[in-house]
């Protein structure tokens, strides 16, 4: 295939709990908004008329999904079916019953655009001859799951928030791409020690 002018129409979304498998959410997701944290700075005006730059630590990144799940959470499997279990304790057995609690669980989210029609998961390997761009964020938390039924359809606005670094200063966010000349390897399983 030839190089893309733009990425449009389709994208892949994968979400994994720590030590859990990736779940594909693109089938129920309509929009993705990735607000990469600003690396801002302040300016100090000196008496000479000059300016000193004071860097501000990078802000957290926020990823917002608009989605149409029909269940409370994903009890099993690799197809994402719900979001409440990501913000609370997930229920693994039917009937699902997600109670609000004080649990905060780390999750990884991967969003990928590719010209391949055979790749169906955002965490997959992208071989040579195929173009893609992928955003991966690990060790973040789902901070908001808001259902809305004002337009006659149950739509969820889901917010995932991640600091740019973990407590050791290791990156929590990666942006990857390939121009078809090299293979972009698959994301490794998300664990306590492996982010992607």
């Amino acid at each position, binding site marked *: 295939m030839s190089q893309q002018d733009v990425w449009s129409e389709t994208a892949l979304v994968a979400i994994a*709990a720590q*030590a859990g498998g990736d779940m594909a959410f693109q089938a129920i997701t309509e929009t993705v908004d990735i607000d990469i944290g600003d690396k801002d700075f302040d300016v100090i005006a000196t008496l000479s008329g000059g300016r000193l730059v004071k860097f501000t630590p990078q802000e957290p990144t926020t990823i917002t999904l608009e989605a149409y799940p029909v269940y409370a959470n994903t009890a099993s499997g690799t197809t994402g079916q719900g979001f409440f279990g990501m913000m609370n304790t997930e229920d693994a057995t039917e009937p699902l019953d997600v109670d609000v609690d004080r649990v905060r669980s780390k999750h990884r989210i991967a969003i990928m655009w590719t010209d391949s029609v055979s790749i169906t998961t955002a965490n997959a390997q992208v071989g040579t001859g195929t173009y893609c761009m992928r955003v991966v964020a690990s060790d973040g938390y789902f901070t908001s799951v808001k259902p809305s039924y004002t337009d006659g359809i149950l739509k969820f606005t889901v917010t995932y928030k991640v600091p740019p670094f973990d407590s050791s200063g290791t990156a929590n966010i990666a942006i990857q791409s390939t121009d078809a000349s090299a293979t972009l390897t698959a994301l490794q399983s998300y*664990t306590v020690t492996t982010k992607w």
Partner: protein
Amino acid sequence: MKYKIQNKLECPVKVADVILGPKEVKILNLAVKPTSDRLIVEKIEELEKKVSKGGKK
């Protein structure tokens, strides 16, 4: 039926009103065997059979 159930995840999981912590193992008495891939489930009777087979050798 009694099942030995282990949570595979690094976050809590609820199994029929019982919450398993990260990687926690519990023995639960359940009417239906859980099938979620978030869990490692073994029937206690099967475990007992394995133990007794091992004993004969």
